[in-house]
């Protein structure tokens, strides 16, 4: 469904390298993309996969690759290049159990930090996290839209349990957001490849091979794309890379809230664990226990406004996620000041609704 969503978003280029549990996306794209006037091919490693995608993006094509933790580790250099050169590209990161080769066929939500904090300088990488097949279809379209609109790499972070579970999908209920295209240059005036007036603006795109000369570089540069050292213009461009994301953070925020005004307890989850969490909330409510629930689909930038809204009247916050150290909980912590913050964590298998219910009941006692 992720591949189907990418096609619906207008993806025209895919390069992949086999890795469980992301190989199905690769296979579907190889099979389907030519019929959608696109090109999909096999790369000799993950570094090449993403470089090919960025190369295609330089020509103006919407491009995607799919991988898992070990492949993502190899791609980080090129993710940073795409960020610095402001080239849109989407990476479907289907998590598996780490570290290292880890467990290829075991699910996990252990790559939250790896996905987000992978750039030198700590610039925000937008990360969308689907919990099921239908959300894969929807969120990858948002990922393409934001990648094209902000000219930046975007990650769709799922895991083995979301990516490799066959499930019934209601085709009529699938969400198809309007498709966004990269904004191109207008007129034939002088062109600066990284031009902006206000730092949050996104430079107009001109394709390599087009009529306007394009200068692209992954090194620190000014708005003309010229390498400069210690120039204030360079610092301006670097600030702009973060500002353009920050300025759209609230617009990018996607959440599925199920709040109860009487609840003092808020359960937060994302990805596959959000499914167990939603079931746990239904069980608790059946028993007459008020609890609020927030499924976060846009992990980064953190949907702060929605979070603040959901926190009203809440004393205790639970964050349920399938990793050892509470990666997203740690990221949310600065935004949860004054609340009691508890984690529901596990590795090796899915967190069950029963375990979440148990944790929430235990904390009330």
């Amino acid at each position: 469904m992720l591949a189907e969503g990418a096609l619906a978003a207008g993806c025209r280029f895919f390069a992949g390298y086999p890795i469980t549990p992301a190989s199905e996306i690769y296979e579907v794209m190889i099979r389907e993309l030519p019929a959608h006037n696109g090109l999909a091919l096999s790369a000799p490693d993950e570094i090449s996969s993403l470089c090919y995608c960025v190369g295609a993006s330089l020509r103006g094509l919407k491009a995607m690759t799919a991988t898992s933790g070990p492949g993502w580790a190899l791609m980080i250099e090129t993710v940073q290049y795409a960020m610095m050169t402001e080239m849109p590209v989407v990476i479907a990161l289907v998590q598996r159990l780490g570290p290292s080769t880890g467990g290829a066929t075991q699910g996990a939500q252990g790559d939250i930090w790896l996905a987000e904090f992978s750039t030198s300088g700590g610039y925000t990488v937008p990360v969308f996290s689907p919990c099921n097949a239908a959300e894969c279809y929807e969120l990858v379209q948002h990922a393409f839209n934001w990648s094209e609109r902000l000219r930046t790499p975007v990650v769709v972070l799922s895991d083995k349990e979301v990516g490799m579970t066959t499930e019934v999908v209601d085709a009529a209920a699938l969400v198809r957001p309007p498709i966004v295209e990269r904004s191109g240059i207008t007129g034939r005036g002088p062109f600066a490849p990284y031009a902006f007036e206000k730092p949050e603006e996104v430079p107009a795109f001109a394709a390599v091979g087009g009529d306007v000369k394009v200068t692209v570089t992954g090194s620190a540069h000014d708005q003309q794309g010229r390498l400069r050292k210690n120039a204030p213009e360079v610092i301006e461009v670097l600030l702009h890379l973060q500002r353009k994301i920050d300025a759209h953070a609230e617009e990018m925020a996607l959440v599925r809230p199920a709040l109860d005004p009487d609840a003092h307890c808020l359960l937060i989850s994302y990805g596959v664990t959000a499914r167990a969490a939603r079931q746990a909330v239904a069980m608790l409510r059946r028993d007459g226990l008020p609890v609020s629930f927030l499924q976060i689909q846009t992990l980064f930038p953190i949907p702060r406004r929605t979070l603040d809204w959901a926190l009203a009247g809440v004393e205790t916050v639970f964050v349920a996620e399938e990793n050892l150290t509470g990666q997203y909980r740690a990221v949310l912590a600065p935004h949860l000041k004054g609340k009691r913050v508890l984690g529901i964590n596990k590795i090796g298998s899915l967190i069950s609704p029963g375990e979440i219910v148990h944790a929430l009941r235990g904390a009330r006692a």
Partner: protein
Amino acid sequence: MMAEYSYLSPDAKLPYCRGCGHALVVRHLSRALEHLGLPPRSVVLTTDIGCVGLADSLFPYVHTVHTTHGRSTAFATGMALAEPVLKSKGLKPVVLIGDGGAMIGLLHLVHAAQLNVDITVLVHNNFLFGMTGGQHSAFTPLNWVTATTPDGNWTPPLDLLALLRTAHAGFLARQYATDTDLHTVIADAIDFPGFALVEVLELCTAYGTRWNQVTGNSLAEVINRQRYWIGQMEAELERPTFLQLYRHELESRPRSKPEEPEVPPLAAKAQPAEELHLVVAGSAGERVQSAASLFCRAALAAGLYTTQKNDNPVTQGTGFSLAEVCLSPQPIEYTGMESPEVVLAVSQEGWKELEANGTLARCRAETLLILDSELEGSPPAGRVLRFPLRREATPKRAALAGLAAWLTGAFILPSGVWDAGLTSLSGDRRTDAAEAIRIGQQLAERGGARVS
């Protein structure tokens, strides 16, 4: 407009050290582009990290992409791969890369050669890393002193041309930067419709000539000792290009995928009011997971939501094969199973895995276990029905026969679901599956199950 065709102005101030071969290469490249008369916007210089990466600003009219170390070839390949999608008239990516970049990005060169994408690579081989302080590379000659081989290099240098010839490169040449006809070789390379690489031999005056007894004139002796081929190498000039192969591939491919026949919804609806969890276990190659998949399609026809998760050892074709299925009248949230209501095991390997992964330990008194009669072992809890599935239906049909036997007695899905599910199969698979289902139903109706 003439100015635009002067790729490099004759009085351009070049940023290289005195005597560096890079200056010669950019001048020859400029002459080659002028000779070919290519419109500047049809050329993209893709530069690598190192002193070669200083060339971008020298060419004010062509597109320039300054990349990461060693990856310049891969980015250029990506740009070239976009050609058939864009139906472009032909972009000419020219990669400027050093010997260090060729080393770290060797696989990118190999794959570009294999694909035969229309890019030209100019490898500036000065036998060491210049910009970072004269460290040795995979191309440093034997006994050369560098910052990292202070006693002389003892690893034999790579022969890039020989290596890329085995990757089916279309155009390969090796020249000295001092060759007066270098521009004609570069022009031939750019003009070549496919992967072309020119290795340009030159000296780094900052480190190469400082630490080694070598001059422009004596470099040839070093090269001869290495038995490097000089000039254009006999390569696979006649190979079809990526573009030609891709067009051929597209033409020979069916226009669109064959549509999977839809599973017709049944008027009669399924019975279970709550979620039901089922585990099917057997051996690899015995159609365990495809039987579960067919069952899910049948359940879908009866209006149920289903999820299916498969498991097998890392080797796909041996050992156990497992499928976990959830059925529910509502959309399914949690796809794990704390305790399955039904377990079907059709082989000893499958049974062992159920023991190993804790499924059997989680069986309760009300769990129904449908086991092949030949299977040894009994669960700690649960009701057991045994059918001679493997013997009567064959091992490859045992899983589906077991599911059919269970449904015959369970009445949770309306009659006709199997027919609805079978519409998703065609030909022999359909006949075969129908036979498995028939045998399973017969076994259940015969009442021959041994209850233990």
